[in-house]
């Protein structure tokens, strides 16, 4: 019994401490180093942070180079798959584009109005600049859903920067290096996004499921009954992590769930991302007219306090006028177009009327000709019966209407 325990201890000691001639470190040393690194990485020291950024840059670039052959095969596979569905999608997209074009004008006006109102609330203008970023590493790990983009602190990317696929939200930046950044996708279990569900206007939080869809969390029980499959999910902007009003996905009913659970189907397919947009937000204070304030320095403080709200209201009114003017111009243009269209239609109607009259004339002429032909034909057969002569005193003189009537009546005088 004692010897078997000794053997076990010897084997364990050998496993931990013994290193062969080619090994530079014993396993125990490396285990301790790993633990030390884990401890250090959890601490937020400046030196460690910079070291980590350096390692990340190097590894991400290497991973991108190494992944080229696999990505090529993967992309070829997806491209072949895409070609089979291109035509169907093209038709669908064409219809959708037409619908969207019509909605575009009104949405532009609303956006403009929205921007102005936000300006007024925040006292600053947030100008956003969307920069295109390429995905350099997308490993689609079964445990963590994240991607690495080729834009970093050099391009003003910060932790929390919103990442888009076209205009749909994809995720946010959680780690920034000099030229690269890691984006946590919405599908990750650790992703939480405050959202609004329209048209019911219900506030909720969407968390990733580790799969292709998101889960709705933290809503009042029983409120699920209000949802329907056409409900749209977009960011509410609560917590100021995500901008408000960014579309995320639509609600779908999970048929497999007996409890009648809803899930969010993201608009964007995260497995197909090649390029994304990073929204760099630059906040600038609203310009206050310094010249005017210098002139009014002598005026009392109350007036100054009241001035800003009045100015703001005036600004809103001015903007409203501008919007109305814009819409008026658009309506005028539309009216002009319609007027020219009506004129062209009227001229067409006139032409068509003329055509109809000439055709009618032709028809009546044709009818007369036919009657004449019939009379002449019958005249050959029955003319002698109706013509007045020495033997036929009851007949009529030729050319009179009675003669014609008689001929058409096949020689009968009455």
């Amino acid at each position: 019994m004692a010897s078997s325990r000794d053997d076990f201890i010897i084997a364990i000691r050998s496993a931990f401490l013994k290193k062969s001639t080619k090994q530079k470190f014993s396993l125990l040393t490396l285990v301790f180093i790993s633990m030390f690194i884990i401890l250090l990485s959890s601490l937020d020291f400046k030196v460690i942070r910079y070291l980590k950024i350096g390692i990340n840059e190097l590894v991400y670039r290497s991973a991108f180079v190494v992944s080229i052959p696999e990505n090529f095969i993967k992309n070829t596979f997806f491209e072949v798959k895409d070609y089979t569905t291109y035509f169907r999608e093209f038709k669908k997209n064409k219809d959708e584009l037409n619908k969207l074009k019509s909605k575009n004008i009104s949405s532009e006006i609303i956006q403009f109005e929205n921007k102005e109102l936000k300006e007024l609330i925040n006292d600053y203008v947030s100008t956003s600049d969307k920069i295109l970023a390429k995905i350099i590493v997308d490993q689609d790990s079964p445990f963590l859903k994240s991607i690495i983009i080729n834009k970093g602190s050099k391009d003003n990317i910060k932790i929390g920067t919103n990442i888009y696929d076209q205009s749909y939200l994809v995720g946010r930046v959680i780690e920034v290096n000099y030229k690269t950044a890691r984006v946590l996708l919405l599908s990750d279990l650790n992703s939480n996004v405050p959202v609004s569900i329209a048209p019911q206007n219900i506030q909720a939080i969407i968390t990733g499921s580790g799969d292709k869809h998101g889960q709705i969390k933290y809503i009042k029980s029983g409120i699920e009954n209000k949802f329907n499959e056409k409900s749209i999910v977009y960011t509410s902007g609560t917590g100021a992590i995500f901008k408000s009003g960014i579309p995320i996905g639509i609600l779908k009913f999970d048929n497999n769930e007996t409890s009648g659970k809803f899930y969010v189907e993201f608009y964007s397919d995260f497995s197909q991302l090649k390029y994304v947009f990073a929204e760099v937000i630059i906040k600038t204070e609203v310009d206050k007219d310094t010249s005017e304030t210098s002139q009014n320095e002598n005026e009392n403080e109350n007036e100054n306090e009241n001035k800003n709200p009045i100015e703001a209201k005036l600004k809103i009114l001015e903007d409203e006028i501008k919007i109305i003017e814009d819409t008026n111009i658009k309506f005028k243009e539309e009216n002009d177009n319609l007027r020219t269209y009506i004129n062209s239609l009227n001229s067409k109607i006139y032409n068509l009327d003329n055509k109809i009259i000439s055709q009618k004339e032709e028809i009546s002429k044709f009818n007369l000709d036919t009657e004449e032909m019939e009379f002449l034909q019958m005249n050959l057969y029955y003319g002698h019966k109706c013509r007045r002569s020495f033997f036929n005193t009851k007949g009529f003189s030729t050319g009179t209407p009675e003669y014609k009537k008689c001929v058409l009546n096949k020689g009968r005088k009455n």
Partner: protein
Amino acid sequence: MVSFKTKGTFFRLYSWLPIIVLIVSVLNEFDFNYLELKYFSFNFPFILIFFFTLKDSKHFDYLLVFLAGLINDTVVGLPLGISSLSYMLLCIATSYFRNITIRPNPIKDWFYFFFIISLINSINYSILTLFFSFNLILMDYLVNTFFTFLFYIIFVSIFKYYLKGLND
């Protein structure tokens, strides 16, 4: 099959092949995840490290395995050192197993591998959830462990050809 008459550059490169494959696999995440099969994932580095530290430890530098772990953490986005610790624990387990084994048996290796990866994945899961507050799905870990276990026997048959070429 590969055989070398002289132990030149090609032989050296050939002997370094497992470690090169390991580095490439951690950089590239060789796991067919893009197939998007819901319950399918496996850990290729585990299979590679287990086999080569067990059968050919003299050509498999622990320091490079350790570095491969760091690379894996960086690529996947895990806290630095987690994968290195997992790989080192795997190396310790194989080293111990090598010491106590008199007559090697592939089936015994296979089940020992299953036991070890289950243990390591449990440690991994515990560290990530308890110390780093990560939200992880346990089922994904179980699926990963199961498929890694299944794939072991397939990859071993390929690796054996490699070892035969190295020893000849």
